[in-house]
């Protein structure tokens, strides 16, 4: 009898434990933050702030929030809105912004963080991102952008497709494997956190807005966590080829026979090997690239530049190889010689992996050695399909 009673009681208690809904939170009770923008405080706004016991009004933090809209009725309206606040500690600002929102803020679906250049001129990347690195709500796949304008304007951008702005920004960056102008490999928050911890140089994609046009292209470079400058699309293309982070690429050259026409190579597959070599005191790298792809476009006259002619195709292959070499060297000039950065530890990592003893010797002076290390490039292009017909 006692056993039965205890059993009943146990069962009764279990119903409470297993019901499971005690801490449920409905979707419409959450305010999803899709994008975060970090700017310097340019002009004082009376309401969007609070009395601060410590620090100064250093940053303007803007959050892009998702507007919950049901059904397909609001197709022509923006799905997001932006609120902002000023202060120094991001965490303090986020909590103060609850006074501007009717639901608590959820960062678990945060897609992108946009940082304005003005902030990075003053502060290191690690200091700006500290809250996002430390907080448990932040995901490692959050995308990061740098803009030379104001980040808030980028958050306020409504894509013509009317999708939520933050999603648009993140999806756009995910196409980096096919868009050679975007330095988007290993730039998520998780990677950046790793690189910051390892004192590596960092590369972040650049985004610009002018009026109603938003575009990604080029990248911002960081020496450790200090912003040093931008690299243009061509330099990024060269760097991506050296680092083998491109999947597909479009490479253009003037036609070898008729230089006012362009011929375009579409990269399909490549085999890239970057190796360090040590000969006595000399340290150098070799980069061997084999590329397979198609002729994607021929601007000239097909009668004159006949791609059916194998000699002409061979001529093109050589010209493409030259162009790729030039591209990689241009990237090296900008990143290595001018900005003196080695983002994502591409070269340093190779030495450490292949020549650990040499690395031990050079690692302390690596910053001085790196800009002088030569790179020997050999490129082999093989054109598979020409897309011509007769």
């Amino acid at each position, binding site marked *: 009898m006692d056993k039965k009673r205890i059993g009943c009681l146990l069962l009764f208690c279990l119903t409470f434990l297993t019901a499971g809904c005690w801490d449920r939170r409905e979707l419409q009770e959450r305010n999803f933050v899709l994008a975060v923008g970090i700017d310097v405080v340019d002009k004082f706004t009376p309401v969007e702030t*609070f009395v601060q016991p410590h620090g100064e009004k250093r940053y303007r933090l803007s959050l892009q929030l998702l507007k919950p809209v049901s059904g397909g*009725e609001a197709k022509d309206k923006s799905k997001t809105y932006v609120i902002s606040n000023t202060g120094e*500690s*991001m965490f303090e600002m986020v909590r103060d912004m609850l*006074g501007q929102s*009717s639901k608590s803020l959820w960062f678990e679906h945060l897609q992108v963080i946009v940082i304005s250049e003005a902030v990075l001129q003053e502060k290191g990347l690690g*200091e700006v991102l500290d809250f996002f690195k430390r907080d448990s709500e932040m995901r490692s796949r959050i995308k990061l952008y740098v803009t030379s304008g104001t980040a808030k304007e980028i958050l306020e951008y409504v894509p013509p497709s009317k999708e939520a702005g933050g999603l648009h920004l993140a999806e756009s960056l995910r196409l980096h494997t096919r868009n050679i102008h975007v330095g988007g490999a290993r730039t998520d928050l998780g990677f950046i956190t790793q690189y910051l911890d390892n004192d590596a140089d960092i590369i972040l994609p650049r985004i610009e807005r002018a009026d109603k046009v938003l575009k990604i292209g080029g990248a911002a470079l960081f020496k450790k966590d200090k912003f040093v400058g931008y690299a243009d699309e061509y330099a990024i293309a060269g760097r991506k080829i050296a680092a083998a982070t491109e999947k597909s690429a479009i490479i253009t050259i003037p036609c070898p026979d008729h230089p006012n026409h362009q011929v375009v190579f579409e990269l399909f597959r490549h085999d890239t090997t970057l190796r360090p070599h040590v000969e006595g005191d000399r340290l150098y790298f070799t980069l061997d690239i084999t590329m397979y792809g198609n002729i994607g476009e021929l601007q000239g006259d097909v009668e004159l530049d006949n791609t059916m002619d194998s000699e002409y195709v061979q001529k093109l292959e050589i010209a493409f190889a030259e162009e790729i070499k030039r591209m990689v060297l241009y990237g090296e000039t900008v990143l290595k010689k001018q900005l003196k950065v080695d983002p994502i530890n591409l070269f340093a990592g190779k030495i450490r992996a292949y020549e650990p003893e040499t690395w031990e010797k050079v690692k302390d002076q690596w910053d001085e050695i790196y800009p002088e290390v030569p790179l020997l490039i050999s490129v082999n292009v093989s054109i598979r399909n020409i897309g011509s017909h007769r």
Partner: protein
Amino acid sequence: MRALLMGCIGYKRLFGCVLIIGIALSISGCWDWREMEDRRIVLAVAIDKAEQGLGPGQGNAVTKVETFLQPYGSKRYRLSFQMLNITPSKEGASGPRGEVGTYIISNTGESLFEMIRDMLGQVGQSIWFEHVQTIIISEEVVKEGGLTPIVDYFRRDREMRWLTKILITSGEARPFLEYQPPSGEPSGMFIGNSLRLYRKNPHVPGWRTDVGDMAKSMDNKSRVLMARIELVDNVVKLGGMALFKKGEFIGYVDEYATKGGKFIGGIEKSAIITVECPKHPGEIIAFELFRHDTKLTPYVEGENIYYTLDIMMRGNLGETQCGQRHNIMDVREIHTIEELVAEEVKRNVFYTMHTYQNLKVDASVFGAKLQAHEPLVWEKVKDRWDDEVFPHVSLVVSVNVIIENIGEHK
């Protein structure tokens, strides 16, 4: 006939039949039904001075209509209601679903009840107050007539709910009703819900600021706290609070003092406490409070009354602005920060205490604690508590902070 009936069914059966018919009539239940669309639901109330709170483009002609001939009193207040528009949105004509339509009606007069009944002439159906979310009062009104006459109706009427939020603004109150939150909800609900986040936002009061709490405080002749809200250029924000004593407006206290007040009362659930980095001046380190144990105890020694406040806080390191330059992994560093946070909490508590004492308002629970622990002493001092005794009580604060997680990785 009668004989015929009795012959057929008998007295008892007849009685039973009548009973059944009678019950059927009385339990059908819908005799006093009122459909949703027959109600005019008020979401928010704004109280301004009569000459303020005009709608956009609203001239004197309209004001002349929005009133009535008053046998007694003056045109003192302007009462505005945000009404829920529950007519279904037509294809293309109205806003999308998810955006709830509202409109505003207003009236001027002195008695709130009189105005409300006169406003029935401005709406087609009767007005329902049971879903009022927010009441917003402009500072000018309370400065002129005090709080008591304004809120009397809300305390007395049975349609008013005790969990309605009541807020104060330094400007006009009506623009808050016109404000359209970007999320699409009506501003009355937006503001009410925003105030409910007070547990995570240390800068808003939100404890004991509902209409019911206010009514209780006024009955006990103690202070009233009211959250402050401001609107500039289509940006609405809550932060700080206003203090009232005996129905009189005493003043505002800022976010920092509000935060300290929450520490004293032990009502914060989560809070961000910032300290300046010991190694990098100007840079901030933020502590995120998770759990705390706060105890306020009064002590009486002869004439002298003092309090001890013991706070034990546990939480995480939320942010360091000095970032990479500062190695937080070191245990000694953590201890330094723990001590700094404790110092900061102490500083914050004293800041609040001095603010309250300067304003001569016991805006926390000091009086109540004395009443509970030392009822005899309380009886002696209660009449001069706020003005004479409270400004001179001392507070001994001891804070202990433990940082549990630092969120650091290597």
